[in-house]
């Protein structure tokens, strides 16, 4: 099963490239000219995203440097122990939606401190692998088209993250505890 999925992952991009370019040539599309036209837009879009990304990433970097996340984690720790959740995974729950590289760092810390086969490591791995960095996704996609009012997108992104955390705890509790 895993081998099959890995094989698909490996072949997904080559198959897309082969299909797209072959279809283009068959339909007499000037593939080189159209490719460069599209690529030109890619350069523009990347720079369009930059201001939005700076706002979000600087804000979140400041928050992480201030120690607010540790304070929040300390505040929540007693509640977690009540539900039998290892409190060393708490920083990951908080950072996950905010920063991708931050979450990766926290995960490595947990895994190294708790050891490879600890319950905390398993729970943290499931949490990290099952979600995305909500703030980054919103900044990139809304930034690319210049949307300033996010409406309910942020609330849904964060709620889905929360549901993911609860689900991760429940599933790991059933499987690994």
């Amino acid at each position, binding site marked *: 099963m*895993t081998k099959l999925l890995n094989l698909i*992952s490996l072949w997904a991009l080559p198959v897309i490239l082969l299909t797209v370019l072959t279809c*283009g040539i068959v339909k007499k599309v000037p593939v080189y000219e159209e490719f460069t036209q599209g690529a030109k837009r890619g*350069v523009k879009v990347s720079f369009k995203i930059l201001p939005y990304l700076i706002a979000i990433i600087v804000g979140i970097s400041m928050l992480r440097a201030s120690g607010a996340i540790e304070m929040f984690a300390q505040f929540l720790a007693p509640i977690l122990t009540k539900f039998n959740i290892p409190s060393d995974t708490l920083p990951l729950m908080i950072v996950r939606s905010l920063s991708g590289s931050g979450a990766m760092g926290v*995960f490595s810390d947990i895994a190294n401190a708790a050891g490879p086969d600890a319950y905390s490591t398993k729970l943290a791995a*499931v949490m990290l692998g*099952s979600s995305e960095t909500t703030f980054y996704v919103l900044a990139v996609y809304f930034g690319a088209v210049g949307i300033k009012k996010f409406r309910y997108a942020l609330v*849904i992104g964060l709620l889905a993250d929360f549901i993911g955390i609860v689900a991760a705890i429940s599933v790991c509790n059933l499987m690994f505890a």
Partner: protein
Amino acid sequence: MNYIFYFLVVFSIIIGAINGRLQDVINAVMSGAELSVKIVISLIGIMAFWLGIMRVAEKSGLIKFISRLLRPITKVLFNELPFDSPAVGDIAMNFTANAFGLANAATPFGVRAMEEMQAVNDKKDTASNSMCLFLGMNTAGFQLIPTTVLAVLVAIGYKNPTEIIAPTLLVTLIAFVSAVLMAKLAQYLAGRSKVNDKTP
């Protein structure tokens, strides 16, 4: 978003001052700005490449073809997009790339989908229902194999790293489905309040 940005900056400064970490907070401004530029620089090449390929796919009618193929599903989910919208094809490509863990390719596909949705959006500075649903799907982070997590587990000497694949898939599925359901519910509620606004 204005309040969130304001809150992030002001709150960080106050908490940083209380914790005696003001210098760290100041340093974070510089490093955060630098990190943003680094991310964008690393994005330019891959973004340009895939948007180039996608333009060829669009001109050869491939995107339209995928869009029509998926019409039965997207008719329900993205009911506000016009029939035959090329956004559907781009959304499908984005979803597929995400599922196989090809985040680098997923972003350009997603950006194209956003552009198509923006083209039919009435208020250009405000997210449409379709956009909110699309981003809900993306922030849920649906992925078949969590490749980066597995890599870390292998590196620290985890004995049986593949055992986390099944629970991760189950959890991401739960988050994904609830994101879609919540987005549809929010769309319904937003539509209802709009109708109420119009009646005097």
